[in-house]
């Protein structure tokens, strides 16, 4: 682990305990590290070369009765989560097109004093007229766009030149589908949850008053597809009223209603503990087979990395878990 200053220059190497959580915007995307031997420097952040583990320090705590310092801050991904994507002036939505890396470069621009370098390589993913959800944070916006096309956001920090700031490289890469690897037969602990206590019919209420209020009905079927066609009826029907009076349009109401329904619907979830020698990345896809034959493919959305008394440990969380 290497300590850097606020200008991203390396100050030195340490071995210390650290607790890092990275992932989508609902992750904390922060870190905490404790150290007793940094009194001689002014740390601005840290990183582990070649990985996404790292960030900038925003919090320091010293206690007179303890011989160590607690340092906290946001990870690189966490910094992206604290920016909101606004529609361009004169437009209702931010709509992007082009190579994925070029889009990311345009979105990030020079918004972070240039600490991020977006790959100038062609990603291989060309996007046409992708509409970002309104006022979404930058991280979720980019991740959602890439996930739709089977890609993921890769962040890695490395030292490229002596006496130069480290480079924090951002790029779109194809998500790896890890299939047939994670199952009980291989001794990897997995758990399967079947939850049929969710809703299957959402009543979306947008702008307007009383009988003039915009109402749209959305339904989910047994395959998890959302449409305006009812699938479950009678005793099996479960209704949920979704009050979204601030919806900007019918599309906005339906988009958000669809998301809400997916959140509250009955579902099957898969969780797993990755083996110690297996490194997975945020956005990689996990495919797992349920005992009843159902197959779930879901991206990794959270990664918790810890060094505790010198031992490294990584936990992963799959979307929907």
């Amino acid at each position, binding site marked *: 682990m290497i300590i850097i200053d606020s200008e991203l220059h390396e100050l*030195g*190497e*340490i071995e210390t305990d650290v607790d890092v959580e990275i992932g989508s915007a609902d992750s904390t995307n922060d870190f905490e590290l404790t150290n007793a*031997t*940094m*009194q*001689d420097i002014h740390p601005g952040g840290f990183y582990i070369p070649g990985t996404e583990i790292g960030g900038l320090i925003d919090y320091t705590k010293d206690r007179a009765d303890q011989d160590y310092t607690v340092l906290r801050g946001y990870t690189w991904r966490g910094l992206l989560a604290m920016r909101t994507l606004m529609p361009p002036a004169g437009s209702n939505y931010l709509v992007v097109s082009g190579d994925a890396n070029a889009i990311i470069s345009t979105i990030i621009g020079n918004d972070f004093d240039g600490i991020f370098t977006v790959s100038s390589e062609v990603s291989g993913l060309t996007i046409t007229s992708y509409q970002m959800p309104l006022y979404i944070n930058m991280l979720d916006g980019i991740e959602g766009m890439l996930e739709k096309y089977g890609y993921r956001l890769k962040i890695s920090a490395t030292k490229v030149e*002596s*006496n130069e700031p480290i480079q924090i490289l951002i790029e779109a890469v194809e998500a790896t589908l890890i299939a047939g690897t994670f199952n009980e037969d291989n001794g990897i602990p997995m758990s399967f949850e079947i939850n049929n206590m969710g809703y299957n019919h959402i009543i979306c209420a947008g702008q307007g008053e009383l009988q003039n209020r915009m109402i749209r009905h959305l339904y989910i079927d047994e395959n998890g597809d959302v449409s305006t066609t009812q699938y479950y009826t009678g005793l099996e029907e479960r209704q949920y009223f979704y009050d979204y009076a601030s919806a900007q349009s019918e599309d906005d109401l339906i988009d958000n209603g669809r998301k809400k329904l997916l959140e509250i619907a009955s579902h099957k979830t898969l969780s797993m503990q990755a083996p110690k020698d297996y490194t997975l990345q945020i956005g990689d896809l996990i495919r797992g087979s349920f005992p009843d034959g159902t197959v779930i493919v879901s991206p990794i959305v959270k990664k918790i990395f810890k060094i505790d008394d010198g031992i490294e440990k990584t936990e992963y969380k799959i979307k929907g878990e």
Partner: protein
Amino acid sequence: MIENSSAVCEIWGLILANLRYVSSSNVSFDLLSFDAAKLQKANFHKVAWGTETVKKQFGTTINRFTKQPQTFSVTFKFKGDPAKRKEQIDKLIFQTEKDIADMNPGRLYWNDQYISVYLIEHSTYPEDSGMNYTITEGKFYAPFPFWIEEKTIIIKPSEESSSEYPENVKAFPEWRDWVYPYDYAYPYARNIIYFDADSALPSDFRAAAYGPVLNYVNFFIDGHEYKVNYELRDGQVMFIDTRDFIPISERCYVLNENGTKTNVFDYRSPDSTLFEKIPAGNAQMNYSRAFRLDLTIFQERSAPI
């Protein structure tokens, strides 16, 4: 664990070991002399490894071995007239408490091996058998539970060393199987230096490169490159120290002509990890010999020999 009797300790002193305590202020106490701080009893060969395990149905799987800080119980015996005893005890206690106040440990030496310690407990009383002796019992606390023997290799630039040989180097002719020890002086101008890291564990080291050095400082140990893209003027010395308890800013720094220090870690070559330890056993160093390089190897042992 070996519990030494006074006699055994004396035998060790006469035959095997030179025992002394050197405070952080560099005040030395001969632990075999009644004129300093005679050690009557000690257990310097106490060793305890710990384990981190995962429980299984049958037994455990060991993830790794660990070692906690070590504590050594010691008994000092002072003799002579009471005033002399008092002075000796005062001197010992003052120095060990100064170590604590400065948070800078003293060192217990067993011949050329040392362990960094603090005297964290002591109790003084007259010996039961008479009034001619005073006993001080105590406990030394070693935060890093290894005895270190330093081995320093000084390698001068090839143009200066045509008639000199590096010190402490066990070298072998290139055409021989080099694991066979052969008492052969180190040939001048050769860029490969063989040495032995006499420890079962990988060894920390401190390297000192003396300016002038053009463009960058680099050397290889067992194929691993240590490289810092920093040019040294005449009079500057660059230090690389792999020991992780050294302050961060002093693990890769340049000592300037005026005594100031410059942290140059940021100048490391991107492909070079600077704090890789030296593997145990036979090793070889390869470098240009365009500058003087001192290599101090910290060979670790759990107990002194």
